[in-house]
C-alpha cells in the first residue's frame, strides 16, 4: 500500500464517521418532536391503584400470566419495575400532602421524543415512529443491552433466560392498536380516566389548563414536557414527582445531544490525526535525514580534510624525498667525479671502494 492509497482509506473511514454524525438527530437543529405525535397524560391525582391497566396491558400484548392475579392489590406494597413479562406496573407511594391517602403512579416506557434507547442502539433496533411510539425490532437486536444502560428511566427489560432468541421488552404504546385507530389497552380500560390519550400538543394544553384551574390540586409542572428533550408520556401530580419515583433533575438535554459532542469528535480525529501524525512522522524523518546528511557531510568533510592533509603530506614527503634524492644524486655524482678523478694507477683503490 502506498501513501496515497492509505490516505484514501483513512478518508473513507472519516467519511463513514461523518455520515454517522449527519444521520442522527442531534445536529445543530433543535428537534421538537413529530407534530402529529400522540401522547398519554397520566394524572396521579386520579389514579386509584386498581391495576386494571396492568391487566389490560398483559392481555393486549399477550404476555405471560402473572404469579398473582391483577386484582390482588397486596403487590402494591412492594416497589416493582417493568420486566420482560410486565410492560407496565403501578406502584404505591406515600403522600406527603395527605398521609392518609397514598398516591399511585403507573410506570412504563415514556416514549421519548429523542429516545436514549434508540440513540444508543448500534443496529437501530429502536425507532421513534411519527405516531409517537418508540418501537423495537427484534430481528435486528444483537442483545448488547446498551439501550438498557441508556434509558434514563431504566425501562427496557431483557429476556435473560432465553438462550437463543432473547429480546428487549418494553411498552409499545400499543403502536399496532394506534395504527388501527384504537386506544392503548391501558388507556381504554382505565376506570378513572387517570390516563388520557391524544395529540401531544393538545394534551399539554389540556394539562396546563387543568393545573391553572386547580392550582391547589396540582404542582405547576408537566413532567415529560421537557425532561430529556421531552417525552410522549406525560404526568401531572399533586406531590413532587420525585416522590412518585420519577427521576428529578434529569435536565432538558436529550440523549443524542449528550453524546453528540463525542460523536462530533470522530471526524475531527479521523481528519486531523492522520495529517498530524504523518506530519510528525515526516518531521522526524526529515530530521533523521538532515541528521544523516549532516553526518554524511561531516564525514565527507573529514574525509576531504584528511585526503588533502594526506596529499599535502605526500607532496611534502615527495618534496623532501626529492630533496633527499637530489642530495643523494649530488653525493653520488660527486663521488663518481671524485672517483673518476682518482689516479688510475692506484691498484688498491678499487678494492677499497668495493
Amino acid at each position, binding site marked *: *500500500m502506498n*501513501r496515497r492509497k*492509505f490516505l484514501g*482509506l*483513512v478518508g473513507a*473511514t472519516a467519511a463513514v464517521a461523518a455520515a*454517522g*454524525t449527519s*444521520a*442522527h438527530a442531534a445536529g445543530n437543529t433543535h428537534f421538537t418532536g413529530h407534530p402529529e405525535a400522540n401522547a398519554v397524560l397520566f394524572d396521579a391525582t386520579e389514579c386509584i391503584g386498581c391495576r386494571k391497566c396492568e391487566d389490560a396491558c398483559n392481555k393486549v400484548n399477550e404476555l405471560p400470566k402473572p404469579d398473582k392475579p391483577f386484582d390482588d392489590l397486596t403487590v402494591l406494597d412492594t416497589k416493582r*419495575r*417493568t420486566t420482560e413479562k410486565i410492560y407496565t406496573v403501578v406502584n404505591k407511594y406515600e403522600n406527603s400532602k395527605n398521609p392518609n391517602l397514598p398516591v399511585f403512579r403507573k410506570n412504563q416506557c415514556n416514549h421519548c421524543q429523542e429516545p*436514549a434507547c434508540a*440513540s*444508543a*442502539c*448500534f*443496529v437501530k*433496533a429502536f425507532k421513534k415512529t411519527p405516531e409517537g411510539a418508540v418501537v423495537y425490532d427484534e430481528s*435486528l*437486536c*444483537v*442483545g*448488547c*443491552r*446498551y439501550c438498557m*444502560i*441508556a434509558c434514563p428511566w*431504566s425501562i*427496557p*427489560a*431483557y*429476556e*435473560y*433466560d*432465553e*438462550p*437463543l*432468541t*432473547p429480546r428487549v421488552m418494553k411498552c409499545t404504546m400499543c403502536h399496532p392498536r394506534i395504527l388501527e385507530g384504537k386506544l392503548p389497552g391501558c388507556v381504554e380500560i382505565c376506570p378513572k380516566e387517570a390516563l388520557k390519550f391524544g395529540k401531544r400538543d393538545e394534551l399539554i394544553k389540556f394539562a396546563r389548563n387543568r393545573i391553572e384551574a386547580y392550582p391547589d390540586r396540582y404542582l405547576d409542572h408537566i413532567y415529560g414536557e421537557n425532561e430529556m428533550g421531552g417525552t410522549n408520556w406525560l404526568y401531572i401530580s399533586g406531590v413532587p414527582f420525585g416522590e412518585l419515583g420519577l427521576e428529578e*433533575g*434529569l*435536565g432538558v438535554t436529550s*440523549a*443524542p445531544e*449528550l*453524546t453528540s*459532542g*463525542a*460523536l462530533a*469528535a*470522530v471526524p475531527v*480525529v*479521523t481528519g486531523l*490525526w*492522520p495529517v498530524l*501524525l*504523518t506530519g*510528525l*512522522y515526516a518531521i522526524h524523518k526529515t530530521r533523521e535525514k538532515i541528521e544523516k546528511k549532516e553526518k554524511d557531510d561531516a564525514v565527507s568533510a573529514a574525509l576531504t580534510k584528511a585526503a588533502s592533509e594526506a596529499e599535502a603530506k605526500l607532496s611534502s614527503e615527495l618534496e623532501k624525498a626529492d630533496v633527499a634524492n637530489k642530495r643523494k644524486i649530488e653525493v653520488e655524482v660527486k663521488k663518481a667525479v671524485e672517483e673518476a678523478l682518482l689516479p688510475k694507477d692506484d691498484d688498491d683503490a678499487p678494492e677499497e671502494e668495493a
Partner: protein
Amino acid sequence: MSAENTTGRSALTPFTIVAGIIVIIGLILTGLRFMGGLGAVTNLDNNNPWGIWISFDLLCGVALAAGGYTTTAACYLFGIKRYHSAVRPALITAFLGYALVVFALHYDLGRPLRLPYPIFVSQGTSSLLFEVGLCVFIYLSVLFVEFTPIAFEWLGMKKLRNIVHGWTIPLTVMGVVLSTMHQSSLGALYLIAPNKLHPLWYSTYLPLFFFISSMFAGMSMVLFESSLAHKNFHHLMDETHKAESEGVALGFAKACSWIMMGYIGIKFLGIALENKWAWLGTGYGMWFLVELVGFVLMPAISYAIGYRDRNFGLIKITALWTVLGIVLNRFNVSQVAFNWKLPAAERYFPSMAEIGISIFVVTIGILAYRFIVTRMPVFYEHPDYKGEH
C-alpha cells in the same frame, strides 16, 4: 526455542495443570451459558444489564491493550528507535487483548451470532457503541496485519513479510487514529446516562479521561508484561532486547509519570468546571480520592522516583500498581459509581460463573501468548532480518 518445547519433558507443569483445569471449567461454563442463556450463569438483571464481562473483559481489556498503539507510535512515528525491541511484545499483547475482547463479547451478547450486524446489516451510527464496534473491528484487523510479519518470519515467508513490513508507517498511523477514537468512545458510552453515573465520575470529559488513561495503562501493561516475560522467557531474548529493555523501562516510566500527572490535572479541572467539589466530602468522594490519589498520583510519583534512581524494581512494581489503578477506574465507572442511586439490594455483584468465564478468557490469552512467544521472533530479531528497522 523454549526449554519446555524441545526437551520433551512432561507437559504437566503446575502451570499447565492449573491452566488445564481453568480451561475445562471454562468450557463447562460456556456450555451452561449458551444452553441456558445469560440468566443461567450471570447475576445480571434489568437494572444492571452490564456486568464484569463488560467492565473487565471489554473496558479493562481494551485499555490494557493500548500498549500496541503507544509503543508503535513512540517507535515509528516519534522515532524513538530504542523502543524497538518493545514493539513486538506490545503488538502481541494488543492483538491478543483485542482478539480476546471480541471473543469475550460473544458471551455477553444476547445473540452473539449477530455480532457483524452493526457493521454489515444495520448501522446505528448515532450510537457510541457503533463507533466502538467499528473501530475495534478495524483496529483488530490492523493489529492482525501488523502481527503477520512476525508469523511470516517464523514460517519463512520472506516475500509476504517484506511486503507487510513496508506498510508499517500507514498501519501505525491507522492504529493511533483508531485507538484514539475507540479508547475515548468507551468513556463516551457513559455520557448517555448522566442520572445513573455518580457525578464524580460522570463528566463531559469522560472520553478524554478514557483516552489519556489508556496511554499510561498501555505503557504500564507493556512494562508489567515485560517484567513477567523477563522472568519466564529470558532465555528467548536476544542481546538487543535485553540491552534495550532498560531504556524502554526508563522512557515509559518517565512518560507515564508525566501523563498521569496531566491526567490528575484534567480530572480536577473537570471537578472544578462542573463544580463538584462538595461531592468529595461524601463516601463516594473518599473512594474517588482513593482511586485518584492512591492509584494515579502515588504511582505517578513512584514512576518519577523509579526513573530518577534508575530503580527498575520500583518501576516494575509501579507498573502493576498502575495497571490495578486502571482496572479500578474502569470498574468504578461501569459498576461502583454506576447505578449508585439504587438501593443496595438492587445492586449487582458478579456470580462465580461470570468470574470464572473472565478467568477462562485471561487464561486463553496467556496460553496463546506463550504459544506465540515461544515460537515466533518476538523477543529476538529473526537472524534473516537483523537490524532491518
